[in-house]
């Protein structure tokens, strides 16, 4: 069982991801609505894995991931975004993201990504 931090500005999407993870037997230890909150909650909760949306107010997911990876190079981050163009996927992988899930996603796609990382 992994301890997961879910980051997305949409409460609806956080609920969907939480539901998928809990059905997989994982624990969602925290939720963040923007990049800044994700950094704070990562420090506080030290989760096994973070899902990270990209387009968010305050601080986007790419900036937040860079900040987390700077202090925690072994952090496991899976991007989860509607922006799926190749350049963005490459940028995410270069900064250390373990996978890139494009929205809308199926529960199977989320399970596949998470199972590979954990």
């Amino acid at each position, binding site marked *: 069982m992994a301890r997961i931090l879910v980051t997305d500005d949409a409460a609806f999407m956080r609920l969907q991801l939480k539901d998928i993870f809990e059905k997989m037997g994982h624990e969602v230890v925290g939720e963040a609505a923007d990049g800044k909150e994700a950094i704070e909650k990562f420090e506080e909760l030290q989760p096994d894995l973070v899902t990270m949306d990209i387009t968010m107010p305050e601080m986007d997911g790419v900036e937040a991931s860079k900040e987390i990876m700077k202090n925690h190079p072994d952090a496991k981050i899976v991007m989860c975004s*509607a922006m799926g163009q190749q350049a963005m996927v490459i940028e995410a992988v270069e900064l250390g993201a373990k996978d890139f899930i*494009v929205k809308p996603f199926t529960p199977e796609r989320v399970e596949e990504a998470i199972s590979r990382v954990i």
Partner: protein
Amino acid sequence: MSAVTQENFESVKYLLNGTISSIKKVIPMDLDVNQPSRLENHLQLEFGVLIGITGDLQGRLVLSANSQVFSSVGESMYGIPLEGEMLSSFSGELGNMIAGNISSIIHEEDINLDITAPTIMEGSTKVKGFSKALQMQVDLKDKGNMDVCLLLDQ
């Protein structure tokens, strides 16, 4: 037609086609997208979501419909009818997914777009301040219609 105008025309054409493809990809319902038309005046709506578009084209994408139509789309995607705060949140996310997929689709034509976080509009709202606007109606059959507007700044 000058080179610049031709280039702009091509970009708008790709944006329009990308919007239609994205809607069909994201919404898993039997739907038809009607022929686009120019919107001459302001946009008036009761419930909708606005996403800013930046990059090679500047503007906004607006989805508007009766809230029950958004709820039906949510049910088709996630199996549960939505209401209240979750319906508003889903509607924003639907706009995010459609705009994000437009961005991915037209990136293949070397047009780079970024999008902003969604703004939800509830209650009588008038949207003004754009130089050109294109409107398409998405016919969701017995579930109703959704209007999709591309408001362009240039």
